[in-house]
């Protein structure tokens, strides 16, 4: 088969416009498929993080958007003293867009000492001491910095907020890379928000032996008669509720990705069939020379496979580059779903491209392999 490699490649190059158009089609489809796959992976990552079951989020009862939840800041100190609680951090959330968006910027305001203690952030640029000294200082996730072209030392304004970038961090948790951290007090004093002494939510770390459901119930019970009632859930449940609408949407988009793959199947199959019909006589010559029907079959399958793999390879490669360098994340209600390239996604995409290549070639290959030689030699 390898010996016939030059023949197969030259055959594809013979109708280069047709081949290149088909390759482009495959590239676009696999690009879309990979991109949608990255969204799905981001959602799965969010859902499968086991640490989300040992962390609780205390929110204001009957509030669903971070902009409307206002808990007294001292709730955190009170919660910290409850049984089963290892620590509690008041967090003020501020964002440029409460609804689902591809370019949502989310600020989380925490006391500086709690930020370093509760988050796995590694500053790649800037330093902590600058952040701690600057009242308006922020540390920016690498993905946001990339997307918004932010540099250390710059001022960054969004809405009523103007901040100074003290550092850019990386984190092993992909969604963190899309986050911006600020001082709690700074976010509480944003002009017009009137939220001094309040926070959006309290993040609660459980002790190793604590029952999360029992602690949730205890917290909500503790504040039932207070100025503001609470709604406490594990972080996993909290996030699932926040992105619930997105799950359906992403599922639908996933179907569109698969539809693109089906479209490529039809496209490659049609192109390969056209190629075979153009070469009925040539295949008859090859059979006369001594090529077996199985060999002719494999030639056609190889053509279809190459078109799909080359197109798919380009599409997947482009998608991986776009995911790597765009720093995109889908955000809703302060929850971020990071789109990231992954080897598994690329490998799955290539496997799908290969599968489509083989399946698309089956009918044309069967036709080519089973053509009778003598009538085929008489074709123009």
């Amino acid at each position, binding site marked *: 088969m390898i010996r016939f490699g030059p023949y197969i490649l030259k*055959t594809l190059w013979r109708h280069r416009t047709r081949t290149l158009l088909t390759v482009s089609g495959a590239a676009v489809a696999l690009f879309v498929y990979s991109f949608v796959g990255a969204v799905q992976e981001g959602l799965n990552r969010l859902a499968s993080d086991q640490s989300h079951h040992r962390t609780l989020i205390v929110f204001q009862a009957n509030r669903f958007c971070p902009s409307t939840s206002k808990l007294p800041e001292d709730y955190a100190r009170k919660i910290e003293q409850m049984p089963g609680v290892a620590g509690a951090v008041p967090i003020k959330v501020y964002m440029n867009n409460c609804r689902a968006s591809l370019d949502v910027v989310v600020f989380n305001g925490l006391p500086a000492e709690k930020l370093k203690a509760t988050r796995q952030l590694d500053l790649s640029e800037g330093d902590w001491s600058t952040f701690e000294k600057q009242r308006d200082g922020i540390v920016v996730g690498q993905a946001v910095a990339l997307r918004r072209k932010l540099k250390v030392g710059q001022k960054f304004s969004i809405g009523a907020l103007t901040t100074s970038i003290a550092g850019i961090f990386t984190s092993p948790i992909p969604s963190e890379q899309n986050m911006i951290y600020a001082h709690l007090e700074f976010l509480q004093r944003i002009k017009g928000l009137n939220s001094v002494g309040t926070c959006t939510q309290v993040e609660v770390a459980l002790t190793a032996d604590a029952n999360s459901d029992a602690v949730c119930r205890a917290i909500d019970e503790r504040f039932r008669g207070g100025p503001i009632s609470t709604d406490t859930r594990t972080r996993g449940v909290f996030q699932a509720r926040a992105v619930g609408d997105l799950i359906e949407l992403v599922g639908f988009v996933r179907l569109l990705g698969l539809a693109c793959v089906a479209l490529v199947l039809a496209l490659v199959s049609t192109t390969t069939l056209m190629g075979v019909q153009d070469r009925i006589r040539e295949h008859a010559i090859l059979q*006369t*020379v*001594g090529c077996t029907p199985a060999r002719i079959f494999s030639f056609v399958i190889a053509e279809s496979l190459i078109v799909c793999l080359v197109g798919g390879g380009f599409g997947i490669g482009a998608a991986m580059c776009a995911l790597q360098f765009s720093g995109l994340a889908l955000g809703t209600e302060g929850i971020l779903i990071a789109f990231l390239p992954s080897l598994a996604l690329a490998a799955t995409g290539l496997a799908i491209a290969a599968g489509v290549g083989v399946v698309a070639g089956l009918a044309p290959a069967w036709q080519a392999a089973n053509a009778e030689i003598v009538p085929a*030699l008489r074709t123009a």
Partner: protein
Amino acid sequence: MLVVDVDHVTKQFTKGEHTITPLRDTTFQMERGDFVSLMGASGSGKSTLLNLVAGIDRPTTGRITVAGQEITGLSRSRLARWRAEHVGYIFQTHNLVPVLTAYENIELPLLLLPLSRSERRRRVDVTLEAVGLADRADHYPRQLSGGQEQRVGIARAIVANPTVVVADEPTGDLDGETTGQILDLLQRLNTELGMTLLMVTHDLHAASVASRRYRLEQGQLIARESAVVAGSLT
């Protein structure tokens, strides 16, 4: 030594409501080193007989044995493998693969045999030399004249040193001068290399270079300028 043995072969096919019988109970044999020409009017069955001997068509009844192998019962795959080893086919219209160079066209049959790259190169070079196209190895069919294309076609047919070479009107598309060159080449293949050739032609002059000549009329094989031969024509 008997190389081709066509034994009481009949070939029929249907066209619409009609049954056509281009060959009727034909018996025909060739010895190693024979150069046989087959003439006949269009539709007389000469190409059909050639295709049957080459193993690219199947008889309705009868048996065909070529190079000691009865080929009428072989599967398509086994028949293809057998052709790669034993048959060289020269087409009227050259039928070169347009995307391959002269060298690559000639190498095609060798790719199907268990030969090393260097052995393939050696054989192709020798064959290109034999057909006088050593300086055209890298040319594509569109860059060659009709006569040169046919010589590449002949080179492709003989490069694997097949047991029998069949030629279907090999000079049908060529001018007078080129026809002479091609016939001379075929004759040299027969006399100098001892190749067994079966050639179908319309051209009396072309037929005359063969050592044995036959005509096909109404499905019957007739020795040229002789009466109907019923039975073997060795």
